[in-house]
């Protein structure tokens, strides 16, 4: 029994999922329409999709002991580009626009990755720089202009609300991204190498792993997913102003940390990061419903991040003690 409980606690994904479910249930008790209404149900599923996509990319980068702070700017830039394409070239197929956004994001991610790999400066500093540069490019391009829902084709805007079997299309997109990246990280050699690199970069180099290639790959993935998230942003909100995606990179990092992705790399899963993202978004929506003021919402998010880190530390100490006892009994056997 005790084992079952500690196993449960050790599965961070499950623990965070339980917190998420509890939050949803408690809010639904207060206001049924939070879940049990057409709008409530759709919002519950669709609102997290953008942050989930970002958090998945962020988790892949953090696993390699790096971080990508530029995703908010990439998201803003690609969201704006999405709108511009529809304005400049009406009739462009939606899929082409989506691919263009992903492509731009990937290129911006490649720039991050190459600088990090070549300059050997912590990614925190590099992507803090590109955060401002990409945002600056965006501001220069957009000026005081903004994209309005009326600029966008109806088909595209419909994506934001469309459902298949009462599941919103955007949620399905996020889920597919999650499954694909989750599969890559858990089941392929390349994915496992990313964990190895994050676990001990020097050992990875000595071992002969393609460290540079994998780290650049992680940044390209993060950038591409930020590009996709930009399209999701445009489809969901219809308007893109110069403030689009401002500060969302920190939410993505927070989601990954809450979901059990170790900030020093090497452990955690994108599943945890995705559930963490869903929890962050849902709690932000739930707090006003249960009558907690805006002021406290950010404090709650901060509290979640700190709780996650404290939990990590406690579990690590517990595990160390268990391992040392195990070592003892093994030598006695």
């Amino acid at each position, binding site marked *: 029994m005790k084992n079952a409980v500690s196993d449960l606690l050790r599965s961070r994904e499950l623990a965070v999922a339980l917190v998420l479910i509890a939050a949803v249930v408690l809010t639904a008790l207060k206001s049924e329409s939070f879940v049990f209404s057409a709008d409530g149900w759709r919002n519950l599923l669709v609102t997290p999709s953008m942050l989930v996509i970002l958090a998945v990319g962020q988790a892949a980068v953090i696993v390699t002991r790096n971080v990508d702070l530029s995703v908010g700017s990439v998201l803003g830039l690609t969201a704006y580009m999405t709108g511009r394409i529809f304005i400049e070239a009406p009739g462009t197929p939606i899929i082409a626009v989506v691919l263009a956004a992903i492509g731009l994001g990937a290129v911006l991610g490649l720039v991050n990755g190459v600088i990090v790999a070549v300059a050997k400066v912590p990614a925190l500093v590099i992507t803090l720089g590109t955060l401002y540069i990409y945002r600056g490019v965006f501001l220069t391009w957009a000026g005081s202009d903004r994209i309005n829902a009326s600029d966008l084709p109806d088909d595209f805007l419909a994506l934001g609300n469309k459902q298949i079997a009462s599941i919103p299309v955007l949620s399905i997109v996020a889920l597919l991204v999650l499954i694909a990246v989750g599969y890559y990280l858990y*089941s*392929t*050699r390349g994915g*496992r*190498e990313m*964990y*190895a690199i*994050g*676990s*001990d970069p*020097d*050992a*990875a*180099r*000595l*071992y*002969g*792993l*393609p460290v540079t290639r994998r780290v650049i790959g992680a940044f390209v993935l993060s950038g591409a997913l930020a590009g996709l998230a930009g399209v999701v942003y445009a489809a969901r909100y219809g308007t893109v102003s110069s403030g689009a995606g401002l500060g969302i990179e920190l939410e993505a990092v927070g989601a990954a940390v809450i979901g059990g992705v*170790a900030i020093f*790399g*090497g*452990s955690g899963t994108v599943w945890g990061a995705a559930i963490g993202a869903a929890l962050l978004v849902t709690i932000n929506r739930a707090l006003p419903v249960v009558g907690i003021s805006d002021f406290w919402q950010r404090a709650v998010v901060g509290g979640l991040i700190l709780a996650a880190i404290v939990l990590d530390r406690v579990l690590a100490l517990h*595990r*160390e003690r268990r*391992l*040392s*006892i195990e*070592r*003892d*009994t*093994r*030598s*006695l*056997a």
Partner: protein
Amino acid sequence: MSEPAREPVLVLDEVHKSFGATAALTSGGITVEAGSIHALVGENGAGKSTMVKIVAGVHRRDGGVFRFQGDDVDFSSTAEAKAAGIAVIYQEPTLFPDLSVAENLFMGRQPLKPGRRVDRAAMYEQSEVLFQRLGVHLDPRRIARGLSIADQQIIEIAKAISLDAALLVMDEPTAALSGVEVDRLFAVARGLRDEGRALVFISHRFEEIFALCDTVTVLRDGAYVATQAIADTNRGEIVAQMVGREVGELFPKTPAPIGDTVLRVERLNSTGAFHDVSFEVRAGEIVGIAGLVGAGRSEIARAVFGVDGYDSGSVHLNGEAIPMRDPRASIKAGMAFVPEDRRLQGLITDGSIARNIASVIRRGLAKVGFLTSRSELRAADEWAARLHVKTHALDMPATTMSGGNQQKTVLAKWLATEPSLLIVDEPTRGIDVGTKAEVHRLLSDLAGQGIAIVMISSELSEVLGMADRVLVVCEGRITADIDRDQATPEAVMRAATQLHHTEAGA
């Protein structure tokens, strides 16, 4: 396996390599034949590790001949060397702590299922087979974090063996292993030799070299000195070639007057680490603690010093009770502790040598709460000179020093506190012959000055040579307390493996 070519597997000749202004290797050379185990010896700083790293593709040579299996090669990465058929066990284990043991073994070459998916079941199975071959029990599913150094070393060995390489280079693979594990490793090494592979074995332990190798190459000061068949040479000759001079006795413990009891440890217990440990150490006495790696020797030392806690029992120093888990109180009472892994626990490797030496006496040095570099340097100077720390400048970072000088720096740091008890854990691990003798002479001197010394060592000859009394630890218990004149290798090994035999019968 390979074609029956009479060509040597590895040829290095006149290889040189410099790092900045320092020449690590001026004319290194070695010729390793297939089906042979070749010892590579030399003092620390002689260039062995640099040569290994050139072969492994970590460093690129500046010039000289490098032939592998008859072809001229020039590896620019470890991946290339590995692909060519070279496996290397590095001195320090290089594992991925967050990943499972099996993943550590097969990273980058995991068995695959259809769809290029990593086949974890097959990976665990193959790991078990490897461990069986090495005769060890390790769970391939557990993560590598928290494994003992010996277990980590075993994983490195398993990894290298599983590479199926034509050349296997082992840089001090036995440093952390116990007797049984060393025997197993040697059996595997001989098996590989009989399959026609070439092995290079680096060790500071002559018993091992003579037991395992058939040829020996000596390096000195970055240059090739000689290659001989093991059968045609002896320890004295090799040592003379290594140092370019005759070395005096290796373990020069001189008798010192034994005084009053300094340390009294009574019935110390710690769940999962050690049980019912009692012993005394008197002034001027060197007490050796022997036992297999993982027997609990370091854990006892850490608990006595106060780094770790314990469940029951007491520690007295000079009649004064030492509080549990309070290293600062222990230092104040007159204890000094040089830990096993000096890089992790005893040395601020990025800090300057002076800062390292002065770090424990800072409080005494600080003036009006401020610590000046000058006062640090002055205090450090004295101790560095007394211990012959070889370095150009005391404000140089400690990480640039050789292992022997690092160890002396750690010792200097503690001696500056003027302790009445010195605990040293593996004082000469990874240190070359010349420095080893210096460390031994130093410990002997300190005992002569009336300091009580507890010395933990895995090297039996060191314990037997240095200690006035040998305590043997086996699986967390003290199984023997042997006086110097009765201490024989057989007596110590019997006590160190006692429980193994009784348990095996049950």
